[in-house]
């Protein structure tokens, strides 16, 4: 695949890795948070850790829109799906997320709710047109990448005057989450997990640009590299961070220059602005309530807003007691620090959100990294 395979070249990977090894000072640690699960995934799937010197330490951030969805929101979605004559559509990732009482959308479907996996928000629109006698609700999740498509669907529904379609909006914002992590008492006050730099999600920045990170690169004096998701991109961004740290710089650099600009995609930003507005607060799984960290549908589109249409009320539900997702999402703990990792909590029976999506830190570690730990243990 053009512009994919080239960035997976094992030979070039070796060269990048050697450059990192050469430049990383052996005396110090480079604590790098990859905010986004996509980077976590790439690190695990390609075994990048094996290529890098011990001084590079990755800390997995909260960057999986599925993992950060709080239980109460999944409960809401299940309630919608169980309404008579209702079809709930969502992306495949969300179907397995654990909700209250051992439920999930997949289980609700097994029990008779009409839950459909869609590939695109437009598929949900298509389903609504095909079933004029049913309520069709699109359970919208995702970061800034996924929000513009939802905006397009909302606008099309309005243009077509579709009466049986609505969106249950759970779109969240990356910069707010990163800021929250840096503002967390453990980080700021106690300094338990000193983070040296960030790998920023390139796909988000194709839409929002790199500029939104400039504020806290400066404010928190941490370098940020907007990085692509191919393994060479990740290695390259590590190298770029090592160089900034070695040089004492804390800039926003753009590794994914092939698709990210400083200002991002204005047209997509406009679509979002037309349809959505900031929520004053939103609960993130693991992070708790984060101010101005999510979007909701503007009052002009209230008829297309499932929260409004069905009078949904939100009830916060605490995570499983043993679950350390909160600490893991903040970079305070590692999956292996969780007592139930790999026994009560497995990808088949996830207790916490980090075990749900392949992007989740626990899931990625279970699937790709578990044997290493076992080898060390044995």
């Amino acid at each position, binding site marked *: 695949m053009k512009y994919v395979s080239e960035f997976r070249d094992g030979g070039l990977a070796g060269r990048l890795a050697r450059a990192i090894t050469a430049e990383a000072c052996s005396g110090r640690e480079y604590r790098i948070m990859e905010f986004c699960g996509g980077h976590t995934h790439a690190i695990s799937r390609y075994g990048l850790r094996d290529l890098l010197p011990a001084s590079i330490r990755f800390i997995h951030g909260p960057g999986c829109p599925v993992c950060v969805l709080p239980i109460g929101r999944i409960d809401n979605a299940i309630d919608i799906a169980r309404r008579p004559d209702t079809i709930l559509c969502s992306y495949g990732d969300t179907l397995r997320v654990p909700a209250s009482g051992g439920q999930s959308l997949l289980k609700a479907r097994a029990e008779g709710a009409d839950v459909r996996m869609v590939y695109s928000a437009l598929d949900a629109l298509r389903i609504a047109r095909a079933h004029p006698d049913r309520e069709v609700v699109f359970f919208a999740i995702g970061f800034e990448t996924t929000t513009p498509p939802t905006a397009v669907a909302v606008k099309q529904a309005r243009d077509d005057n579709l009466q049986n379609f609505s969106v249950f909006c759970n779109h969240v914002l990356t910069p707010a989450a990163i800021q929250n992590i840096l503002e967390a008492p453990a980080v700021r006050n106690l300094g338990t997990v000193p983070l040296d730099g960030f790998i920023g999600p390139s796909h988000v920045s194709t839409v929002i640009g790199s500029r939104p990170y400039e504020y806290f690169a400066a404010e928190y004096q941490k370098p940020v590299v907007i990085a692509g998701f191919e393994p060479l991109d990740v290695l390259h961004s590590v190298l770029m961070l090592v160089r900034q740290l070695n040089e004492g710089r804390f800039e926003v650099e753009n590794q994914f220059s092939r698709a990210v600009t400083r200002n991002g995609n204005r047209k997509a930003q406009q679509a979002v602005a037309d349809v959505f507005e900031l929520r004053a607060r939103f609960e993130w799984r693991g992070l708790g309530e984060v101010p101005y960290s999510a979007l909701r549908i503007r009052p002009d589109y209230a008829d297309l807003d499932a929260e409004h249409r069905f009078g949904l009320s939100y009830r916060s539900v605490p995570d499983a007691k043993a679950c350390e997702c909160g600490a893991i999402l903040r970079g305070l703990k590692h999956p*292996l620090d969780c007592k139930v990792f790999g026994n009560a909590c497995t990808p088949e029976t996830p207790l916490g959100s980090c075990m749900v999506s392949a992007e989740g830190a626990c899931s990625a570690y279970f699937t790709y990294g578990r044997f290493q730990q076992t080898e060390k243990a044995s």
Partner: protein
Amino acid sequence: MTSGAKPGYVRPLNFRRGSVELAHGGGGRAMAQLIDELFMAAFDNPALRKGNDQAVVEPPPGRLVVATDSHVVSPLFFPGGNIGSLAVHGTINDVAMCGARPLALTAGFILEEGYPLADLRRIVESMSEAASAAGVSVVTGDTKVVERGKGDGVFINTTGIGVVPPGLELSGDRARPGDHVLVSGPIGDHGVAIMSLRESLGFEAPITSDSAALHELVAAMLDEVPQVRCLRDPTRGGVAATLNELSRQSGVGIVIREEALPIREAVDAACELLGLDPLYVANEGKLLAICPPDASERLLAVMRAHPLGSDAALIGEVIEDSHGFVQMETAFGGTRNVDWIAGEQLPRIC
């Protein structure tokens, strides 16, 4: 950094409140778990334990017999059994009807997403009990899960293999004019037991399904009367369908006597109530036997000596008829045709 991670560990299936999920058929760990904790546990035997996609068995000498049936009964549980025991009995019977000793069964499950694991376990355990009681192992199997609304709880295919001792030749095409026709007991029990559970029919009858494995009855019959021409279990379509099949295969006619047919009063009454004819109602533990006339008395005696044939009866005889009609002498001395069922039997009001 220490961890409680157990390699390959999975939380045990929740047989109390859990239900079948698509993942149980997805080829991953959930499927392996269902196979281990349910099927392997219930059917445990060396062939299955091997864990291969096929079983290897050492057959005794003789010709090999193979029979297959998919079971789609609704409801899945009924007085006298459930789809699990039925799936074992049904296929053992098809194997046994050519005089073979059943050796092994395969089991193919098609499960509907959402079906309760507790009920599935009851079904699998009944299967296992029925198989053990019959002395047959489930040597290999398969599990598929279909989306909710694409199945009906549980479908089970069983395929049976067996071995016919040399010299034995039973086949539906061997009936000859003059032969006698016997049935191993009262007819229609299974069908009536099932219908009594249909909400839309809503009646209660003191009838349990006759579901049973007949291979031992068959062995006893053939030991004593190896001249038996053919055996068949009158399942779907009832005695009428089976007699029509046999007359067609053999190119003969068959006459049965209404008065000789063993039918329980409640089966008769349920049929009256619904406008059905017991001749068309399914059986799952009965057989029809055709034998030369001089052997029928002995055959009847052997059948009656066996618990599954205690109410056996001589019900008619084979005649010459190139049209292959099955007729019945009514209790009045009149005669009528006993045709194949037309379409499915629907309860009638008129």
